[in-house]
């Protein structure tokens, strides 16, 4: 359920806002409070349902990294593997 597309708020007017989906701008209604221009949001069926959190964007990987670290500690996977993962993360962040 619930296809959501990422876009950026470019204009706000009363209850309506305009979202740039990367070259395509569409009108939407927001059910997120305190929306500002420049925010990244998730739009579902023309509705802003959530703001994307920049700070937590890479948090998804914290767990992954933790699992990996443990596997390496336990000798299940090699240190090189961990380094490989680290270098991927580095690439992502830079």
């Amino acid at each position, binding site marked *: 359920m619930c296809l959501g*597309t990422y876009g950026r708020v470019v204009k706000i007017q009363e209850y309506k806002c305009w979202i740039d*989906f990367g*070259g*395509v*701008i569409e009108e939407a209604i927001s059910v997120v409070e305190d929306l500002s221009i420049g925010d990244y949001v998730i739009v579902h*069926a023309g509705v802003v349902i959530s703001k994307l959190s920049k700070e937590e964007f890479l948090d998804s990987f914290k767990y992954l990294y933790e699992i990996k670290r443990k596997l390496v500690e336990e000798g299940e996977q090699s240190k090189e593997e961990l380094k490989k993962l680290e270098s991927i993360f580095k690439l992502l962040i830079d």
Partner: protein
Amino acid sequence: MNRLLEEFIFKRLPNWMKLVNGGLGIDYPDDAAAIPIGEKYLVITTDSYTVTPIFFRGGDIGKLAASGTINDVLMLGGTPIAALDSIVVEEGLEEDVFEKILNSMFDIFKVNGVSLIGGDFKVMPRGQLDKIIITTVGIGIAEQLIADKNLKPGDKIIVSGNIAEHGITIYAEQKGFLEKSDLRSDVRPLIDLMIPLFKKYKNEIHAASDPTRGGLAATLNYWASISNTAIVVEEEKVPVRDVVKNYCEVLGLDPFNLASEGVAVLGVKSEVAEKILEDVHSIGYEDAEIIGEVREKESASLVIARTSVGGYRIIEPPVGEIVPRIC
């Protein structure tokens, strides 16, 4: 649609009626038909064009009809030389609208050296059709046919440019979603691309099509079934502009299913694939890519895409009306 064709036409005709001896007809339906004449072939195609709206970003129904006619002749290996047109308009269509449409059709034929040697014109009462229908016949000469059934395992698949541009533009026009986007139809004749390629690679190009209705998904599935092969595509290699990708994502549409009107798909011998790609680039089709290859068929004929994370999915031919989804 395919079911209707199969049931009401293909099944009812005896084999000899489907082609002229030594040529190509609806025995293996292709972009066009061919009749052998001496050492060469006469290539003929016919198509009816309807589109809503009749004027869209990047073109109109006149440009669409002329380009489509030329491209269909080209995709069978023919050099287009002449066309005929049959136009039916709804009573009350403004004259300047009509003139504008004709002008853009004539312009395309003129620039590409195609004579307009005959036609028909009728007016129908208001409400009996939607503004205008243009039916064309395209005629060309081929030294060698490019019949899609000749696609072979090992061949590489080349796409000449960004896909789905026409389909998504028309869709956006119809839904009034076009505001502030740089979407535009890619409709154009492909003479400048195809003629030099034929000359240089007449034995190495095994299949050619323009992925119009049903998009790349329909074209590749048709190729696989008619040539009894399987096709594997690297999804990330298929050229799609970001704006088109994003727009499709908003509406839950698949670019693979959307029409192009100015793109050629080629099935070529793998040894020369890179060379052909270079030539395509140097002719000016800079977005062209080798997107995949043809393999031996294992079970049912299939088109498979290797996805961005390395998994595999099946590309099915699209079914029914294209509607946006929210789930």
